[in-house]
């Protein structure tokens, strides 16, 4: 992993200076400096919500900074949109892939740059030739240029998006979480390609929250935390420990609350042979009273389907027993009646649990309206009385039931999502990636709430895309692979390394390391820091 050979190391060709950006008064970026040299891979490391994607969007012209500016080759750089940015030499591979499903691969790659015939029509032959050349250059096999993007897998789409950016031959390539949808071998291909592009003299910005990948590929590392830049260091000057504490900051001590209680002996939910579609292929699980059971796995191993099936959204077969009674759950209504609640943060991060322009009261009572039905009417006072204990216990906002939910902070909105199911009498709560894109303070608040509710006898199924959370929050972790639970770890048993090994299919740790890249277990480091 030697440094790029040719370029002048002090010559940063893309520079962001003092960039600030706030949304609704909350700083997503605050006075951030960041620079990329030709010939280097510069990693941008940070937790979800640290501001990485916001910085990328500012650079590519999707967002305009509130203050500060971006310079490219010493000129002020403010492209109208990502397309203009790419044409100017700064190509960004966004997390949200800018691909059009009903166009073919080649039409997507050369969108708006299509070779034309004399009649002004798009030359399909020209497109095909150009994309085949491009694929050859990149060593990309297995994708036909005339396939519809609609028919491609997520990983293949990721490669098309990368090819699309490289087609413009940009001087700077930004890869925003480009590895998150890829399997181990694909990840290592991508890392090699990034290295190669840097060696060709391009500046690469590599964004990831996977420490191992970053350490494998980058020359310099900038760590963002809560919208501010913690610092920039050459790889050689960093240690894993140092980077982790830079990412997490001092808040770490309070991030995971102390364990309040251990699960009871009673099984609250028992799942046997749960099958749904092609993704969920027979899951057996026991969830105890007062237990937080973590669910982990790579993308698309059936975690989402498990949650959807348990909540009656996805059609499923198998036995679900709640509180000793077999339940047939075919709709969310059935699930709520069985005492199950669901808080789901979907892939696109739009909140699926709240109605933003309605009040806290109206949001909280929505699933329980039947109970408030008084000869066909809802009595306002009865409703107030009904929701107030939850508002008080979970400390939602400024504890005003009439507050509009859209005006609450992210953490308080999540409390509303969970709170409305507490009101239905649910004792089992399914939390799907509830902390995604949430800042550290809010996370701590959510974890504290979960811990307290667990101590009160509520049971949780807890999925997170963040491994560190899965190691620290649950009592027990179940690893899913290919639609089944392949391993279970009791608290303290699973290091991040072991989890990763199980996640990639229970093969030996050597292949697990392909994606983990020989990381030292992040978990133990975190534990060490929390211990004193």
């Amino acid at each position, binding site marked *: 992993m030697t440094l790029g050979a040719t370029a002048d190391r002090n010559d940063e060709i893309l520079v962001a200076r003092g960039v600030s950006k706030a949304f609704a008064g909350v700083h997503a970026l605050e006075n951030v400096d960041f620079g990329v040299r030709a010939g280097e891979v510069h990693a941008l490391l940070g937790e979800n919500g640290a501001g990485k994607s916001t910085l990328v969007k500012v650079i590519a012209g999707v967002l305009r900074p509130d203050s500060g500016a971006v310079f490219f080759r010493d000129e002020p750089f403010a492209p109208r949109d990502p397309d203009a940015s790419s044409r100017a030499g700064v190509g960004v591979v966004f997390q949200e892939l800018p691909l059009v499903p009903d166009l073919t691969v080649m039409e997507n790659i050369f969108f708006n740059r299509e070779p034309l015939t004399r009649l002004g029509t798009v030359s399909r032959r020209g497109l095909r030739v150009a994309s085949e050349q491009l694929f050859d250059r990149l060593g990309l096999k297995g994708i036909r240029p005339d396939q519809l993007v609609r028919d491609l897998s997520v990983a293949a789409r990721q490669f098309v998006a990368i090819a699309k950016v490289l087609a413009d031959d940009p001087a700077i390539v930004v890869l925003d979480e480009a590895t998150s949808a890829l399997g181990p071998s694909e990840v290592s291909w991508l890392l090699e390609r990034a290295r190669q592009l840097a060696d060709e003299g391009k500046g690469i910005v590599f964004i990831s929250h996977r420490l191992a990948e970053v350490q494998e590929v980058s020359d310099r590392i900038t760590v963002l935390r809560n919208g501010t830049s913690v610092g920039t260091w050459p790889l050689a000057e960093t240690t894993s420990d140092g980077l982790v504490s830079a990412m997490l900051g001092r808040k770490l001590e309070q991030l995971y609350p102390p364990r309040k209680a251990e699960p009871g002996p009673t099984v609250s939910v028992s799942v046997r042979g749960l099958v749904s579609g092609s993704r969920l292929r027979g899951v057996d699980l026991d969830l105890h009273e007062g237990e937080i059971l973590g669910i982990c796995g790579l993308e698309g191993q059936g975690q989402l389907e498990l949650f959807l099936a348990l909540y009656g959204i996805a059609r499923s077969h198998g036995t679900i027993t709640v509180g000793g009674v077999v339940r047939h759950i075919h709709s969310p209504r059935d699930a709520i009646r069985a005492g199950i609640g669901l808080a789901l943060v979907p892939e696109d991060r739009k909140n*699926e649990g709240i109605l933003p322009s309605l009040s806290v009261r109206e949001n909280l009572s*929505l699933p329980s309206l039947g109970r408030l039905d008084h000869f066909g009417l*809802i009595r306002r006072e009865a409703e107030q009385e009904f929701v107030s204990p939850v508002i008080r216990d979970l400390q939602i906002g400024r504890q005003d039931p009439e507050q509009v939910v859209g005006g609450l902070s992210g953490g308080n909105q999540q409390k509303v999502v969970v709170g409305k199911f507490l009101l239905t009498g649910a004792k089992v709560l399914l939390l799907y990636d509830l902390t995604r894109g949430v800042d550290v303070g809010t996370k701590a608040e959510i974890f504290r709430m979960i811990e307290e509710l667990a101590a009160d006898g509520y049971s949780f199924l807890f999925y997170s895309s963040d491994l560190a959370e899965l190691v620290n929050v649950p009592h027990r972790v179940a690893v899913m692979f290919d639609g089944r639970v392949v391993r279970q770890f009791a608290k303290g048993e699973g290091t991040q390394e072991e989890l990763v090994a199980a996640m990639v299919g229970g093969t030996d740790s050597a292949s697990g390391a392909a994606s983990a890249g020989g990381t030292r277990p992040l978990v133990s480091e975190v534990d060490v820091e929390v211990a004193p």
Partner: protein
Amino acid sequence: MSALRATVIRNRPVLFAYVLLIVLGAVGEIVASGFLRINHVDELIISGAFIALVGVGQTFVILTGGVDLSIPWVLNSSAVLLTLWSHGSSGRMAWLTPILLLGGAAVGAVNGIGVAYLRIPPIIMTLGMSTIVEGGLLLYTNGGSGSNAPNAAVYLATHRWGPFPVIASVWIGVLVVATVVLSATPFGRRLYATGQNSRVATFAGVRVTTVRVAVYIVSGVAASLAGIVLAGYVGSSYLGMGDPYLFASVAAVAIGGASILGGSGNFVGTTAGALSLAVLAGLLPILGLQPAALQIVYGCVILGAVTLSSAKVGARRRAE
């Protein structure tokens, strides 16, 4: 107290609709003195009532994020069948009315099933149903229309108790019922939830499909009722009498401050919208404009209202 303030804030567009109504009324009085005398106001209320009646259904549908384009021909069928079957007899009207309302409900149910279960876009489903109902009516009547409207219908539509039009009491009744249903029943709450975000509503255990079918049924019944009353007002029925009410119903809802995307608005606003449209229609002849101008006004009003509300949404989004 806070609840009251929140209600006021949430209903700002509705208040705006009433301000518009007052302004239009004032303009009328200025342009032609006597515009607001009791007799003329009565007329405005009566012509507004038909818009309000179709508007109540359209309000319910639009609140869930849909739209009902089948209103004109449901209205028309109801009017034609009433005059055709009753032969002007009020006694027959007594048993015909429930049948016609049920017919409206049936058309609404088909619309609702198409939209909710078969997932056909509302515009397409209701446009298709509109044509099917139109074709059905034409086939049944062979292109003719009925005779005189029953006296009871005429009474309902045109009679006044002193200065007070009978139909205004119908309107007030509908206003009270619709407002209570929307603001104080579990169904109303579920309806708003469905319109705001049907996935969130589903996840919260709301049977979104049922809600959708129900609102189209409400719309069908309301359109059918409007047809009965309108036949009374005209004194008979003719083909095409429902046509203006498509634009009018949507315009009334739009002026009334409801979001065309669903989830916000109410019938109190639509009431102001219906009255405003009636006042506008009353102003046109005074300004020397042909009736055709009414169509143009409807269009401009709809455009103005949705542009205004989208500008507000845009401003809020930018602020966030």
